[in-house]
């Protein structure tokens, strides 16, 4: 691209984005309701986020969120000394490099959980899975804990703590793990600027040049769908993906689209952690896509199958843009750390 063309496109994108987002309501606040004697809690997100659904039977309260937070960091949940935080560290946007866990971030908008979507439903359903199946939480142990007796009594009016209540408390806290204050978000809300390299990366991301947007939709930076992106040519065993859940041969090799928010903090990448850097990820999309029977149709574009042919500068710009999705406020938020 000629230098003048790039400059013109840069300013065109800047002006377009700033004008469009200037005309919209800037934030939406979700508030708990009908919580009795408990204190209402709120979640505020940008207006360009999808709508959040908060179930009527698990409204947000400060007491409920605090209880969920305490449980999140408490090894009492398991019989192995592990807590949720053992595999979901705040500094890594609540992911963990050791086990390549998906980040606990913006899960309030998910309806499928885990790389193959094995757990479906609401956050409450996901946390029920964690309590009952993953941790096999010893409910009696929690019931015999004096501190939890008082907390559950206050939040759920429970004389006897159940696994459902534990899951619901966790869901309230996890629902609060919202990331929306990256440099990209600040740029959209006119609180900050992106560098020319980051803007060019945004253009590559959000156009046919890179074509990232089709799966990593703006806002949440995920479409919450499942795709086969050609990381292998055959898929079996742990690499079967969504097929392991649905048994549908058309789902072979499909995995959940992870959010790219805070992606610079959530290495390694892909369902099996095969890529350790963002550069390796981009190289895959640029020239490493492997043909297979379930390759997402988007990847059948001639430029995808034969490589995007991104220049070194374009790759660097794309990495710069992805790094601009880091939300320092989120990974340092004291309300989300160990109580």
């Amino acid at each position, binding site marked *: 691209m000629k230098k003048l063309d790039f400059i013109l496109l840069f300013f065109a994108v800047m002006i377009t984005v700033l004008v469009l987002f200037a005309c919209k309501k800037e934030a939406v606040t979700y508030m708990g309701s009908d919580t009795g004697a408990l204190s209402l809690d709120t979640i505020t997100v940008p207006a360009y986020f*999808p709508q959040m659904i908060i179930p009527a039977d698990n409204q947000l309260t400060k007491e409920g969120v605090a209880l969920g937070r305490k449980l999140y960091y408490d090894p009492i949940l398991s019989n192995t000394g592990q807590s949720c935080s053992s595999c979901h560290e705040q500094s890594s946007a609540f992911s963990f490099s050791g086990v390549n866990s998906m980040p606990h971030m913006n899960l309030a908008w998910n309806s499928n959980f885990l790389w193959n979507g094995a757990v479906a439903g609401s956050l409450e359903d996901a946390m029920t899975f964690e309590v009952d199946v993953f941790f096999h939480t010893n409910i009696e142990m929690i019931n015999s804990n004096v501190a939890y007796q008082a907390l559950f009594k206050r939040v759920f009016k429970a004389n006897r703590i159940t696994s459902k209540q534990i899951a619901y408390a966790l869901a309230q806290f996890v629902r609060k793990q919202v990331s929306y204050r990256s440099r990209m978000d600040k740029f959209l809300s006119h609180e900050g600027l992106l560098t020319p390299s980051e803007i060019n990366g945004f253009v590559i991301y*959000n156009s046919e040049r890179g074509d990232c947007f089709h799966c990593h939709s703006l806002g949440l930076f995920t479409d919450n769908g499942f795709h086969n992106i050609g990381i292998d040519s055959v898929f079996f065993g742990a690499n079967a993906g969504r097929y392991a859940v649905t048994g549908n041969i058309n789902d072979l090799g499909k995995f959940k689209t992870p959010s790219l928010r805070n992606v610079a903090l959530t290495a390694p990448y892909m369902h099996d952690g095969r890529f350790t850097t963002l550069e390796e990820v981009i190289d895959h999309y640029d020239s490493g896509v492997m043909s297979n029977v379930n390759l997402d149709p988007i990847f059948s574009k001639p430029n995808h199958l034969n490589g995007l042919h991104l220049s070194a500068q374009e790759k660097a710009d794309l990495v710069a843009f992805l790094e601009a999705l880091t939300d320092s406020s989120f990974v340092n938020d004291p309300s989300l750390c160990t109580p």
Partner: protein
Amino acid sequence: MKIQLPTNILTKVMLLLLFVQMSCTKRRDIFPEYADLVIQITHKVDGEKLIMDSMMYINDAGNLYEVNRLEYYISDIVLFSAYGNDYCSDEVFYINGRVDNNDLRLLHVPSGKYVGMAFNIGLSSLKNSSNGLTNTQENVNMAWPEPMGGGYHFVKLEGYYWNGIGKSGYAIHIGTNPCLIECELGKEFLLGYSPHELQLEMNLNEWYRTPNQYNFLINGSITMGDSIAMQILANNGKDVFNVKSH
């Protein structure tokens, strides 16, 4: 002097008035002023119900293909009244071909005789602006990138076709204002008692049929960014639907 009406005449008049009142009431029960209209969307391929993920459909160009994704918007529905007072809906409906129930509901439509309908596949220029629709996950996923014009995808039709050697993917993505698809259908129906139902049936092969035959191998299998391909398909899209009533 006081005039006293004969009671037998008075009685007859009262009975007549009562009869008239009852008749009017009965007519209102049969023909209310407003009614709800349910438009059922169905998807077929030359008469056969669309089955997703099944490589068994052939278009006029001879492309053997399957469908994995079918998503689109229907908006600005107009019902043409036989009496001149057309009904216009401002609603935008998102349709997902994988979902069994794609009923559109128009509430509180004036009763009466209608002779046809019109609607857009996609969004008019007034509606087709970024973040212009309610931010559901579906609408966010349909966003058309800012660098390419902004707004929303009008249609996403994806799947695989046989290229002679093996499977290739196709992604029919239609968007941008010049490619708005304006449909108009003639159909007489009487809307007078709730709920009334119409069936709007999409024949997917019509996307590749008239006025221009579309061949994946010649015209392209990926249309986003290809304004010529998008315009061909948008022109073909004007008659992908036909309407029936129950």
